[in-house]
């Protein structure tokens, strides 16, 4: 599918409610983020022609119908809505639904919102006895938590590429430093290698400070047609050049949360690109851009080690070279292609439906030159990447 500049939409406004463990109703965070995004866009709620909500599954019925929940919280105006769920990729799908509505000429201005209130500790499956649900069964039969999977990937990096636990810790140290200057980050504190090494092992080889927390937070974006942005005095608004929402290709031979097993690799030939590689590849293809064009990236560092996998998956370096990229300082602010200037999940913790939207908020601030002390100088093209369990890819490319 070809995209190109004719299929761009404008990021008219962005807003976030700070991440934390506030323990309040998720609607409050979404509403605050939406209010900031509307103000940033210079529009009001009655200008919005469509609301796209990213759902949360841990906050009861209002979470499953988030588009309507946020529309009602803003005050019913008859606005059409959509609500979607795609695990960690929900935010990208909500953006895609709004973008498609705009590109189809069905509306000019849309509001995208995601927010979550999370319980303490590991994410657990939804309650009840559900032996047909792999997400329930993996806890029951294996005790396989999310960090279990992160740890399997991390250990494999160590054995295949010689990564060390210090490499992983250096990702955390970098992201913590980036996040220091971010008013929306939950953790704004330097972390040392020694502190990572002194934190308890959660899932060997990963320690507590290698693994992202679960957080409350909210993020919102006002998207518009490029023509609307021009008529609104925002001709130079950051553009969304691509949104990838690909699923795996058969046979998927990398074990994915929450599965027990991979597809068999002995009959059908594995696809040319792994699932994770295919996520950004589809976005590059859509935008007509490549990894060499990227100046800044927000990747889904559910664990410190996973950030290294993403460097390779989005083409910043070849397989097995991520540690070198990190240790050369290429992915630190001031380096060749800074990764997670926001501080990433390491500084935020994960607020699932808000996270993919928050990634785009950060890149928008970066491309506008509004990122303050964490500014990546001269950034013109940015990419986000993320993956939701059960096969949800998510990658967004924004450009000036």
């Amino acid at each position, binding site marked *: 599918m070809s995209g190109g500049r004719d299929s761009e939409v404008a990021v008219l406004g962005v807003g976030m409610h700070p991440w934390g463990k506030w323990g309040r109703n998720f609607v409050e965070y979404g509403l605050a983020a939406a209010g900031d995004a509307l103000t940033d866009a210079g529009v009001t709620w009655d200008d919005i022609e469509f609301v796209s909500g990213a759902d949360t599954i841990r906050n009861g019925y209002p979470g499953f119908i988030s588009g309507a929940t946020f529309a009602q919280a803003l005050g019913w105006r008859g606005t059409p809505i959509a609500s979607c769920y795609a695990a960690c990729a929900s935010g990208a799908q909500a953006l895609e639904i709004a973008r498609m509505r705009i590109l189809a000429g069905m509306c000019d201005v849309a509001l995208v919102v995601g927010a979550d209130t999370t319980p303490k*500790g590991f994410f657990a499956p939804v309650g009840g006895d559900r032996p047909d649900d792999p997400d329930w069964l993996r806890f029951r039969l294996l005790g396989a938590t999310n960090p279990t999977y992160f740890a399997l990937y991390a*250990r494999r990096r160590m054995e295949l590429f010689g990564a060390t636990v210090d490499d992983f810790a250096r990702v955390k140290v970098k992201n913590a430093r980036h996040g220091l200057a971010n008013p929306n980050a939950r953790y704004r504190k330097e972390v040392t290698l020694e502190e990572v090494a002194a934190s308890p092992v959660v899932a060997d080889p990963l320690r507590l400070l290698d693994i992202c927390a679960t957080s409350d937070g909210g993020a919102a974006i006002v998207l518009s047609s490029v023509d609307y942005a021009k008529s609104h005095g925002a001709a130079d608004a950051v553009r969304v050049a691509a949104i990838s929402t690909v699923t795996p290709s058969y*046979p998927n031979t990398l*074990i994915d949360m929450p599965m027990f*097993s*991979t597809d068999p690799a002995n009959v059908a030939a594995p696809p040319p690109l792994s699932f994770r590689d295919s996520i950004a590849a589809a976005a590059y293809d859509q935008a007509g851009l490549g990894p060499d064009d990227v100046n800044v990236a927000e990747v889904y560092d559910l664990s410190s080690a996973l950030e290294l996998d993403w460097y390779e998956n989005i083409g910043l370096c070849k397989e097995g070279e991520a540690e070198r990229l990190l240790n050369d300082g290429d992915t630190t602010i001031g380096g060749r292609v800074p990764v997670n200037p926001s501080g990433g999940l390491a500084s935020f913790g994960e607020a699932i439906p808000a996270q993919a939207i928050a990634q785009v908020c950060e890149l928008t601030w970066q491309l506008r030159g509004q990122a303050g002390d964490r500014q990546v100088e001269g950034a013109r093209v940015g990419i986000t990447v993320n993956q939701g369990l059960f096969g949800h890819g998510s990658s967004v490319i924004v450009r000036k």
Partner: protein
Amino acid sequence: MSPAKTRVPAVEGWFTIDDAPHLVGSRCTTCGTRFFPRRDIACADPSCAGREFEDVALARTGKVWSYTENRYQPPPPYMSPDPFVPYVIAAVELDDDKIVVLGQVVAGVGVDDLKVGMPMELTVDTLFEDDEAEHLVWKWQPAGASK
């Protein structure tokens, strides 16, 4: 002494509990591909229209793809002993079938005993016990470890 408890699989139809236990997979009768866990709706290969499957015994042996040890108690529905006991999980690529399958590793084998590529074999062991029964699950152990 209480009488021996009934031994029941913690999930029905996923594995056998005989002397040489194996995972039970599904073989697509159209294309011959073998899957785990079992399938009964449609072949996973998009180029195959198969809708019928037969149960097959999958390879009992494989090679370590990766491994970890969980040191924190998972939430329910994991039936954790009290106090919590850490456990090792391995992802093992089955010989012949080329399916990577997760499983706990038997007690007594630690992460320092494992290596990517190391040969493993399937066994059946206790997952948890309640008043009525001993609930069983498949586990991995280093190949040749059983008598």
